[in-house]
């Protein structure tokens, strides 16, 4: 009897384990179906596009919602909610015709009013949007943001349900590109009002009009799923049935999960990237951000161009990106990162590059250094180098310090590695000699970088000034704004002036090394603005 009982129990255990195995193989066979398992390195903080500030939010918004356009490969504009666009001859008025078959996940139609509502909500100072500044240029946006005009005066009007008219204060040659950025997407007024303060704080408190719908996100958890949105107007082109996102902050962990087949993509640390340099699955994602040395030109020693040039010329940037960084970052060609814009097949970064600005020439550096010191009437110079306190930043400053001290006699570098927020505060108050800093483009146009160094820009912390540069940037926005070639030439000239004068010393263009399973096809990655677009992604057999 007793034995019989044990036998029964054994059979049950064996059967249930068989059942479990069956479940296991079932789930792995769905993995070979159209399901993508993607790694994230940080939580999803919000789905409210008016207050979103981070990459994860923008990426998720981009895949679950849609604006007038969608950004395709190389930031090319692809159809979104707009089917037709008319631009007035002076370039100050855009008339968009919207598609009639676009729907929200709550069943309502996407109309021109949703755009008007969304834009007005974002520029409203009460919403406290940190990206509202992108609206600058749209009629009255600046005054509304500063509380001087009513929200209703914003240059956006709905003419009926499917016609949207946008008027500008000044020409924005990159206006269409901006429309692919989530801050300019529509919002469903009913949903915003209904959910109130909970709007965008969990997947159920949000509506979607994009290729996917967000599910299983509680507002603070470490995993969520994008499900194909069957209400999406172009659902036939959406091949994935689901994308599972998992947050793994340790690259060791995500790499282990990748190896075990639980993830189809993982971010790599610099160390891992070096070891996996020959992997066929290695994909380096170039960011639209450039890091550079910014000199405090309110100080006499850094007003001296010979000193600035000497410092730039002693840095071996190749060694820096390969040995110190090792994460796939490349030597910067100038200020604007590569891959932002092209004219006649030539990349802006190449067209506007100045070789000597990022070259290493120590003999020349020594000459310029001696000359500079003489002009200043000193024999030695204390250089205060400011940077972040991350491991990467510390390695970088150690490298820069040794390059400068070893090659320039009389140079004494004192390094301060401080937390990011402190670094920003000190940069803003001018409490630095040279700061290692970076800038990332919000949209794929060089102006996103070049605006930074005009004399009146409040974020020009080094206070480098050049009248010719200011004039060229101004021309690119006014007289030459409508002429692609002229505008391009203005910007090229401007960047060359900045580089020739070493207003800044470019160091590197940031990149992130990742591994992606070779069966994953059709992932669109753009460096500027939103990064990932999974609309056409699929799993190859």
């Amino acid at each position, binding site marked *: 009897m007793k034995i019989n009982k044990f036998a029964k129990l054994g059979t049950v255990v064996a059967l249930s384990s068989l059942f479990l195995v069956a479940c296991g193989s079932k789930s792995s066979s769905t993995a070979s179906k159209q399901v993508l398992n993607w790694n994230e390195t940080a939580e999803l903080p919000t789905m409210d596009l008016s207050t979103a500030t981070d990459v994860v939010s923008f990426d998720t918004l981009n895949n679950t919602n849609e604006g007038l356009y969608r950004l395709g490969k190389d930031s090319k504009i692809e159809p979104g909610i707009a089917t037709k666009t008319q631009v007035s001859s002076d370039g100050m008025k855009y008339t968009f015709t919207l598609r009639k078959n676009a729907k929200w996940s709550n069943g309502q139609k996407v109309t021109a009013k949703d755009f008007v509502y969304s834009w007005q909500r974002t520029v409203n100072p009460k919403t406290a949007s*940190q990206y509202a500044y992108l609206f600058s240029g749209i009629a009255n946006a600046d005054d509304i943001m500063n509380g001087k005009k009513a929200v209703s005066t914003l240059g956006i009007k709905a003419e009926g349900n499917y016609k949207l008219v946008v008027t500008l204060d000044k020409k924005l040659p990159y206006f269409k590109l901006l429309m692919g950025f989530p801050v300019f997407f529509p919002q469903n007024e009913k949903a915003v009002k209904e959910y109130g303060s909970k709007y965008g704080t969990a997947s159920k408190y949000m509506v979607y009009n994009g290729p996917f719908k967000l599910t299983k996100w509680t507002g*603070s958890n470490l995993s969520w799923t994008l499900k194909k949105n069957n209400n999406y107007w172009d659902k036939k082109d959406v091949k994935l049935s689901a994308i599972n996102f998992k947050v793994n902050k340790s690259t060791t*962990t995500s790499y282990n999960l990748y190896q075990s087949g639980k993830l189809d993509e993982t971010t790599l640390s610099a160390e891992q990237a070096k070891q996996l340099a020959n992997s066929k699955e290695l994909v380096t994602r170039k960011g639209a951000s450039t890091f550079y040395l910014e000199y405090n030109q309110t100080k006499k020693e850094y007003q001296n161009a010979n000193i600035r040039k000497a410092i730039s010329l002693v840095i071996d940037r190749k060694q820096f990106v390969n040995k110190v960084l090792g994460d796939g970052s490349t030597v910067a060609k100038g200020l604007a990162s590569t891959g932002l814009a092209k004219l006649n097949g030539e990349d802006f970064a190449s067209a506007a590059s100045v070789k000597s600005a990022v070259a290493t020439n120590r003999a020349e550096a020594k000459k310029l250094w001696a000359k500079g010191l003489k002009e200043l009437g000193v024999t030695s110079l204390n250089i205060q180098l400011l940077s972040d306190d991350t491991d990467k930043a510390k390695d970088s400053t150690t490298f820069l310090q040794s390059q400068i001290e070893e090659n320039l006699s009389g140079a004494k570098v004192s390094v301060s590695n401080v937390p990011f*927020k402190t670094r920003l505060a000190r940069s803003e108050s001018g409490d630095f000699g040279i700061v290692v800093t970076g800038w990332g483009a919000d949209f794929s146009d060089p102006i996103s970088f070049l605006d930074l160094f005009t004399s009146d820009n409040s974020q020009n912390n080094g206070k480098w000034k050049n009248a010719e540069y200011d004039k060229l940037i101004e021309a690119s926005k006014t007289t030459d704004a409508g002429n692609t070639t002229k505008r391009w030439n203005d910007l090229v000239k401007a960047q060359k002036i900045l580089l020739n004068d070493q207003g800044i010393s470019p160091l590197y263009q940031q990149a992130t090394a990742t591994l992606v399973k070779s069966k994953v096809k059709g992932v669109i990655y753009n460096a500027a603005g939103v990064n990932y677009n999974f609309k056409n992604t699929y799993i190859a057999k």
Partner: protein
Amino acid sequence: MRKYLLKRVFYMLLTLFLVATITFFLMKLMPGTPYSNQEKMTPQQIKIMNEQYGLNKPVWLQYLIYLGGMLHGDLGTSFQYSNQPVSYLISSRIGASAQLGLQAMIFGVLVGIIIGSFAAINRNTWIDTLCTVLSIIGKSVPNFVLAVLLQFYIALKLGWFPIADWGGFSYTVLPTIALGVGPLAETARFIRTGMVDVLSSDYIELARAKGLTKFGIVYHHALRNSLIPLVTLIGPYTVALMTGSMVIENIFSIPGIGEQFVKSITTNDYPTIMGVTMLFSAGLVVVILLTDIVYGIIDPRIRLSGNGD
């Protein structure tokens, strides 16, 4: 006893008030703003934002407003997670940290007691040396190194447990071990030292002379006495573990509170900093009180009120 407790509760509230005050003003000394896109915002925009959030008000006024909110149970909303109430952020993530911390503590203390007693009983033999060496290793190897090793060999290579994530009990095994090794080593050391002392005392001789079994002596007489110093250690240790370990949570991708706290500091997320600090402090003062009460229970020589009532 009641008078004693009332007095203690009053001191606890006073402590919490002081912690809140000091943290608030220290926090306001940190440079920068809580806005994550600060780098790209002009001073004018930052000014407008500060007005929206009331950060342009004098610090003492902000402090009074915060204190008022806290008394009503309102901890404010987070800056990192737009519109998310801090109380929700904490409540949705403290569970995993608390479970993990508690499991690690139970595992560490139980195994630590066994190893420690074993070492004490077999004092000055190779078993004792082995136990001592093990606890020294356990104390000196950082838990994240152990975590990475466990993850690689046990989870990835052998496949016995999940690599990361948070689901059922199996997900908690490796992080519990990694986190529990610290208290394990500490406990083993304490118990060994305490028990060696106790085992050489007169009353143990007496117990032996009475003919009690070895187990009986160790369990009823030696262990109970050597537990006393441990009680002091366990309380604060448990709070520390339950409020989250950033490193272990990151390695095993556990949705805990540990990283949230660290990140709130680096991003100047004022309401979250305050919320988590207050939670931690409250846990600590309560546990200190409990420790003192437990003292009185396990050691009759200690009287709580001092006048013998």
